[in-house]
């Protein structure tokens, strides 16, 4: 049922990576509960621009929950209070008239703030470059059914592959650990015969890159899984641990 609500936003404003940030409050009137969270921020930015102020900088792209660009730590949860959705899929019907909504950037040493709510997540790209791929020789395309893959493995690999790399796991983790992301990326390949060949090298390379970039150590709190918009399971972390320990024992 559509209605309009009045809200107060408490948003983190920070001019640049080195500047000191602070919270600033904004009131918004007549926000439709049908609008998405990002549309509400668009309304705010339009208001700010009309008043001659700097708009709030935030990451977004596809706005349909698949690109992994949107972030935002809303009222104590990455991607907001709704379950298993990204911020762009969060709607204002989850909020009530008169609510004060606190919006913060991902806070982690691995994701430095660029400006306002936008953080630098290129660390994830560096981890992927360290080994999140399979080496293939170009040439004729092999037949898709030439290598049989058990259904259960294919399903689990597909579940791991739904990770969009948004970084909510790092944002939710009290240790700033990227283990859920790395484990999903290791699992999606380790479970399939094509990825199996380089599995040991991949696990070692991606994990050491993760450590090098200053992410923390997993203590199995499970906050990452609880906040993940794609419901990636922490059993992937067990698989990464297994792959890594096996690889190191073999060396």
């Amino acid at each position, binding site marked *: 049922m559509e209605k309009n609500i009045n809200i107060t936003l*408490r948003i983190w404003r920070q001019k640049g990576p080195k500047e000191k*940030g602070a*919270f600033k409050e904004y009131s918004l009137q007549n926000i439709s509960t049908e609008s998405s969270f990002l549309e509400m921020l668009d309304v705010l930015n339009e208001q700010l621009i009309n008043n001659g102020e700097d708009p709030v900088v935030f990451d977004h792209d596809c706005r349909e929950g698949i690109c992994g660009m949107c972030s935002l*730590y809303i*009222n*104590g*949860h990455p991607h907001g209070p709704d379950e298993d959705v990204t911020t762009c899929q969060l709607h204002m019907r989850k909020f009530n008239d008169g609510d004060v909504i*606190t919006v*913060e950037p991902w*806070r*982690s*040493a*691995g994701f430095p*703030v660029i400006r306002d709510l936008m953080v630098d997540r290129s660390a994830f790209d560096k981890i992927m470059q360290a080994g999140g791929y399979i080496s293939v020789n170009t040439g004729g395309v092999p037949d898709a059914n030439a290598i049989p893959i058990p259904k259960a493995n294919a399903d*689990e690999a597909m579940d791991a592959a739904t990770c969009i790399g948004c970084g909510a796991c790092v944002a*939710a983790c*009290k*240790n*700033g*650990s990227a283990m859920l992301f790395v484990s999903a990326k290791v699992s999606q390949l380790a479970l399939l015969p094509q990825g199996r060949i380089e599995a040991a090298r991949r696990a070692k390379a991606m*994990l*050491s890159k*993760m*450590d090098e970039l*200053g*992410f*923390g*150590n*997993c*203590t*199995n*709190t*499970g*906050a990452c*899984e*609880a*906040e993940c918009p794609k419901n990636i*399971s*922490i*059993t992937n*972390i*067990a*698989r*990464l*641990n*297994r*792959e*890594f*320990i*096996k690889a*190191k024992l073999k*060396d």
Partner: protein
Amino acid sequence: MWLLNSSIGKKVVMSLTGLFLILFLTFHMSMNLVAIFSAEGYNAVCEFLGANWYALAGTAVIAAGAVLHILFALWLTYINRRARGKDRYKVSERPKEVEWASQNMLVLGIIVVIGIALHLYQFWFKMQFNEITGILPEVNPHDGYALIAETLGNPIMAVIYLVWFAAIWFHLTHGFWSAIQTLGWNNKIWLSRWKCISNIYTTILCLGFAVVAIYFGFIA
């Protein structure tokens, strides 16, 4: 050395020392229960595990396990706090799926260490250490039963021990399955099974300890 250099390696050290300490606690709890049934039986255990070479070697291994576990905990916590960054969240909510203990392992660990210090002073110092050094000639190092009766006979002390056991319970309900998870011995089916096993095992372990404290503090 990957056990020192990599994040998973450091956690493997935490897991193995943690599981080893759980095993030690299991033996310790079983021996304590003897005290409820028989004073002579308990003192026989004390004499058997006095200051023989094997008891001393065992003590050294257990101490090494505990020290490694604590040092790695401090080291990992330092790295984790640094990884979290300088700015903290203003509003942060614990998702309902996350156990309270899992986010407070260090605090619980510190309570456990304080308990260990008290416990070592009250028992180990007067028993094994006394037997080697003869520092307290008036205390018989093999009369463990009398020591328990005297120390836990004070209900306040019994309550302090019960609080200590509660902290161990919280620490282990998360620590047990978490150690298994870190060693990679987990999957979608076993995740909930290990959590259940953790809870049951830890509860039995802590009840075993608690029964002795309650018996000597409030019944005997």
